[in-house]
């Protein structure tokens, strides 16, 4: 079966179809990192680059999965719990996402087997010249050949609702997989399995774009990241005939995330796989350093609800895992306590808070802001206020920096308090009595837990600063005059400030 490339070959990325994006304005300065660090450019252009970054992770994950099955059932002595939920989570949320966008997706092993089956290649790219040769094995998409069904992802599912619900469902059972290695194996193993099956059925990285629960929050928070993959010069892209970044070439695969890299304006769905850097015939794609919170446009309710879910979870987890209320922990810990009414109350509260309560309060605040902004003195410009959806999505954006910093604030004490377990399991990953590096028997030693609040307060205030700053900028963009913008944003600013006050009360109150 052969197909030539058409625009419809590439379904819209999540939320693209919802509302038209506003005109892209690149704000702040950019530093072309690949020009600055030539050895890095050389490295990312190698075909073996991605294999080289995924492979160590594959080795680690196979070790983790083994430990989760055959190792000790005691969570804090099993590498899968300690490395995945303490170390990896902290690194991901506190360093990788804020400073390196979705770089985790570049090294993620979940789609490894699926992509191998789909491409029948680990390193090389399968390309063909559509004018010279049309017949051949597999399905031709663009100038690459793929294997498997290669169906188009259903249009009705081109959003991140599956990721939102999947993530919330997983997080409801967090007490289970944070303590029981075998449950973490089930979660990670399922992700490997689902990714592999979906790669065999659907085109390219449908799993990563629409299903992976980790991908959902990476997509949201990568908007705030200080790293981006973008064209050096959009003018070059406008005149480019080959569109190799989209269609692929002999140098690499067309964008596995089904994006049009030369028109990238947000980080959300770019997995930093570097295929576009390799394939671009004009050497025009690069990795750039940029200011924090540079992407400022949410494009659909699915993305907005992801922000609500992340904020609700940061709050709920802070209460659950760092609060003094033991009964909440018992409710969430269904496997140990078996308190089903308590668990159902906890799950119901978590889901209502994430999907109804916070969005409801936010919607009221937005509506109130619009009403306030509408009251203008007689004789002033009486242009109608922007539509609710536009204002709502714009004002949800401040939850991106705030939610990210709230998660960093929550994750930090986890690392400080449980960090010594990392050294222990480094020497004895399976809990079998090994002592590879002589650190297996060190006692549990919380690392400067008394510093926690002093680190958490500035983090939360930084989140609030960016939330208010970006929110005000959004209001200014939507409402034009300063007075209306301030009035429109005031209720939302009050909600954002209340959230931070709540977190501060929780951590230092």
């Amino acid at each position, binding site marked *: 079966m052969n197909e030539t490339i058409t625009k419809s070959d590439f379904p819209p990325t999540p939320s693209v179809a919802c509302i038209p994006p506003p005109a892209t304005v690149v704000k702040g300065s950019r530093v072309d990192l690949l020009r600055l660090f030539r050895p890095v450019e050389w490295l990312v252009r190698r075909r073996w680059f991605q294999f080289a970054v995924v492979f160590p992770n594959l080795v680690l994950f196979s070790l983790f999965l083994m430990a989760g099955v055959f190792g000790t059932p005691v969570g804090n002595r099993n590498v899968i719990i300690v490395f995945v939920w303490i170390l990896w989570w902290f690194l991901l949320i506190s360093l990788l996402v804020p400073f390196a966008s979705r770089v985790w997706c570049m090294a993620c092993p979940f789609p490894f087997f699926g992509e191998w089956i789909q491409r029948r290649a680990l390193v090389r790219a399968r390309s063909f010249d559509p004018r010279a040769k049309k017949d051949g094995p597999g399905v031709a998409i663009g100038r690459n050949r793929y294997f498997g069904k290669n169906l188009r992802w259903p249009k009705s599912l081109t959003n991140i609702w599956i990721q939102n619900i999947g993530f919330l469902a997983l997080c409801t059972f967090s007490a289970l997989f944070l303590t029981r290695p075998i449950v973490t194996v089930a979660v990670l193993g399922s992700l490997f399995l689902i990714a592999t099956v979906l790669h065999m059925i659907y085109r390219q990285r449908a799993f990563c774009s629409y299903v992976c629960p980790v991908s959902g929050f990476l997509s949201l928070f990568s908007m705030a990241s200080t790293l981006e993959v973008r064209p050096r010069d959009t003018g070059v892209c406008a005149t480019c005939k080959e569109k190799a970044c989209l269609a692929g070439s002999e140098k690499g695969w067309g964008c596995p995330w089904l994006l049009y890299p030369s028109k990238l304006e947000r980080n959300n769905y770019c997995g930093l796989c570097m295929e576009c850097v390799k394939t671009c015939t004009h050497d025009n794609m690069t990795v750039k350093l940029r200011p924090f919170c540079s992407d400022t446009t949410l494009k659909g309710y699915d993305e907005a609800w992801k922000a609500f879910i992340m904020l609700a979870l940061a709050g709920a987890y802070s209460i659950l895992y760092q609060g003094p209320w033991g009964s909440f922990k018992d409710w969430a810990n269904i*496997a140990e306590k078996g308190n089903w009414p308590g668990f159902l109350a906890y799950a119901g509260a978590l889901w209502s808070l994430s999907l109804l309560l916070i969005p409801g309060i936010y919607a009221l605040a937005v509506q109130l802001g619009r009403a306030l902004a509408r009251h203008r003195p007689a004789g002033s410009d009486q242009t109608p206020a922007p539509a609710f959806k536009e204002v709502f999505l714009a004002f949800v954006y401040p939850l991106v920096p705030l939610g990210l910093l709230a998660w960093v604030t929550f994750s930090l004490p986890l690392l400080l308090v449980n960090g010594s377990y990392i050294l222990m399991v480094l020497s004895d990953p399976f809990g079998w009595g090994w002592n590879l590096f002589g650190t297996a028997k060190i006692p549990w030693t919380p690392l400067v837990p008394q510093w926690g609040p002093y680190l958490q307060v500035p983090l939360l205030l930084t989140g609030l600063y960016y939330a208010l700053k970006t929110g005000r900028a959004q209001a200014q963009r939507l409402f034009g005059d300063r007075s209306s913008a301030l009035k429109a944003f005031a209720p939302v600013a009050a909600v954002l400030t209340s959230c931070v006050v709540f977190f501060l009360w929780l951590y230092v109150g």
Partner: protein
Amino acid sequence: MNKRERILERAAVLLTLATLIGVPVTVFSYQRHRVAREAAGAQVIELYATGQAGVWTQESLRAWDSFFRHPEKRAIRIKAGVPVLFRLTSVDVHHSFSIPQLRVPPQDVTPGRWTEIRLEPQEPGSYTVLCYTVCGAKHAFMDAELQFF
């Protein structure tokens, strides 16, 4: 695909397959070798303590099966006249292991860690293992019979 690409592709495939097979083989081989070296000729008796069931058991309780297996109390049979290396761990709470008749004082048995106790060759007979840390509702029943035969 040129020759260099072909070599790289094959190397990547081999490396992946070697990982999938090599990681488990290496891990299990190392564990076997390590325990044998620790034992230094002694017979190794691995005991898992579970406060929930109130038993010391020789059934290995791993991450994948420890939550649904319900080990029963059984006599632990050990060859007399041969040194013994007890390897003890707990899958839930703290315990302490003691064999009063053999003057083995209480030794901490910590969740997820291994405690090793060496015992000189014993005459045939029967001895009782006791837990000296209150480890749960079944602490009072947390004993085991050692049969040296």
